[in-house]
């Protein structure tokens, strides 16, 4: 009986140890972070608010280019195309993709880790958004996605191919905790 009890306690201990080590195995990011969108979506503003709440030193720059990476230790890319946002920024899809590719190259060159977020759910999917997702995800060190945006498993597939940790959340507000954890050393 005593042995069984000890075994149970041991198993519980192992479970929590695995859980903690899994958490600690997630990549860590440092601030200051540069926040921009890939596709001029509205969710980029939400990420800036969440970053503020998470205590992350950050700067939101909707039109950031590789030159703007100077001085930053992380890049937060908020994925998803918005025709309205692109129009307001005076950009088309090609110009925006050009900006993003430049940014990805710049981050690689400067060894700045990228955290990708997709918070727009199912509505922020479709051919145009998917182009940005496919372009950015392979370069990410970690990905946070609202579940309804991953119904078809696109994020799961792309992340598995590259061994990138993927955190699924139910609601936008739930991005706060993983963001906080990602920036807590």
């Amino acid at each position, binding site marked *: 009986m005593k042995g069984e009890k000890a075994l149970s306690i041991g198993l519980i201990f192992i479970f929590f140890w695995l859980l903690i080590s899994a958490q600690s195995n997630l990549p860590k990011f440092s601030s200051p972070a540069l926040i921009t969108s890939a596709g001029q979506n*509205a*969710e980029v*503003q*939400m990420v800036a*608010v*969440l970053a503020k709440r998470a205590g992350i030193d950050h700067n939101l720059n909707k039109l950031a280019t590789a030159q703007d990476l100077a001085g930053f230790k992380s890049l937060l890319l908020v994925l998803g195309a*918005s*025709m*309205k946002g692109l*129009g*307001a920024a005076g950009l088309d899809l090609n110009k925006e993709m050009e900006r993003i590719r430049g940014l990805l190259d710049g981050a690689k060159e400067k060894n700045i880790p990228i955290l990708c977020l997709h918070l*727009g759910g199912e*509505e922020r999917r*479709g051919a145009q958004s998917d182009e940005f997702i496919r372009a950015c995800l392979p370069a990410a060190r970690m990905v946070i996605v609202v579940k309804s945006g991953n119904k078809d498993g696109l994020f799961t597939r792309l992340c598995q191919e590259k061994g990138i940790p993927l955190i699924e959340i139910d*609601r*936008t*507000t739930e991005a706060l905790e993983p963001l906080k954890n990602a920036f807590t050393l």
Partner: protein
Amino acid sequence: MSKLRAEHFKFFSFLAIIGLISACRTAAIKVTPPPADRHIPYEYVGRKTMVVAAHPLAVEAGLKILKEGGNAIDGAVATACALNVAEPFASGIGGGGFMIIYLARENRVTVINFREKAPSAFYAEIFIEKGEEAPTWRTVKGTAVGVPGALAGWDLALRRYGTKQLAQVMQPAIDLAERGFKISETFSSINKEEYEKILTNAGEKTVYLNNGLPYEPGDDFRNPELARTLRLIAQKGIDVFYKGEIASKIVKAVREKEGLMTLEDLASYRAVEVEPLRGQYRGAEIFTIPPPGSGLHLIQLLNIASFWPISQWGLNSAHYLHHLTEAMRLVFADREAYLGDPDYVQVPVEKLLSPDSARLKANLIRSNGVLMEYLPEEIKEKTEAGNTTHLCVIDDKGNAVALTQSINHFFGSGIIPEGTGFILNNQLDDFASTSSGPNAPGPGRRPASSMAPLFLFQEGKLRLILGSPGGTRIFPCLAEIIINIIDFGLSLDEAIEAPRFFSYSQNGRIRPLSLEPRFPQATIKELEALGHKITIREAYDKYFGGAQGILIDDKRGLILGGADSRRDGFGRGY
């Protein structure tokens, strides 16, 4: 005795037959519920009345008033007010609009114009001086806000043609604002899309954000501040809004954001009753709103279309899309050249609606390619969102209302007078970018509008009540729906749900053709070959509006409601 029994038998048989017929009639209108896929065409059915609007709870508000003995005008105002609560991002007391009314007993159509006005200190160069390159001056600053007209319009319509007091028809909206409701996907997605504006102008603590972030579908939403505001108006009348404590809050909010509105601007605002505009399409008579609305351009478009054998060309055919698209571009050129507030500029309505004008344009359009230029010119490109809202009501006496109202962009200017819970419009963005011309900014002027609520009569009888939001897409999309019904024989909701297309011209030059991707690939390829640059939108894109309509089917004795699935369109009748 046996004779008496036989008489009883006859009498009860008669009652039974009547009962059976009634039951069948009742059963006939209890049709299958709406399909789970809201995009599948579905018509709401009634025998005496119908309300269609962009939110089910607003429809319930209108229907409640009709059931309590109100007429179509009462029902329409109740629905319009409830939309302020249920769909606050699209319209409300901080905005304005147009209402077209059919009075069955008099067989007369009239129009209430409650479009917003520019403040008296407004001037032609205002946006140029502020810097046209910074669109914030015309969209999110106080300079964007026009003097709201909704309450004055609702009140005028009720006083002249309603049977109930404003306080009575506002009650369902007040109850709804207090009780609250679940956030829909449409609300949530628009809330997310406009997050930055709301955050900037209303702050993290506003009721239009959930703890500082956009609402998610299924979240609870209550608006006690709006309930309080509406209750105050119900108790004290519209003067509290135009001359009392709410007026002071509006002026304070607008001026804090660098606007020019004064208490005098609010106190002097009047909604006006005007004559409708009339047109014809393939034997049907159309009544719609005059300038500064775009009923004129809707009729122009249909006039041009009437020269073509559209039904032979085929629904969704490249030939049809090409011709109507080219007609849109020509009509938009006229719109920029001539449309303005008729109180300040002369709009050549007769000339533009003449058969010669339509024939000239129809002849200009080439079957084998797009035009080199579209004259007259000057249309400034804008990133107008799908906005505004539309509702239709018909009562058991045959009175009808088509009402389009707006705060312009979704969530308007994002400016909320303190503690009031309603959003102020950014309607002054609809003025032209030039300091001269028919739609130049000016004191007291109403900016040109794309709204075009309408009635369509056939053989002297009201057959169709229709309207839509959608910025500049409004009147072209309404023309498409009418063509879908008349030329292609689609049912009302099939016509509303059918794939949409839109284009315009700018400075005489061609602009892209926006399409929902449900058109056949072959059609899209053919259009590209004809010289159209194609922009593919979403399958059911809010960009193309959210039309609501009522079709009166005299032959079957039914009233059919069609509500657009591009938004949360819904209908109900009895």
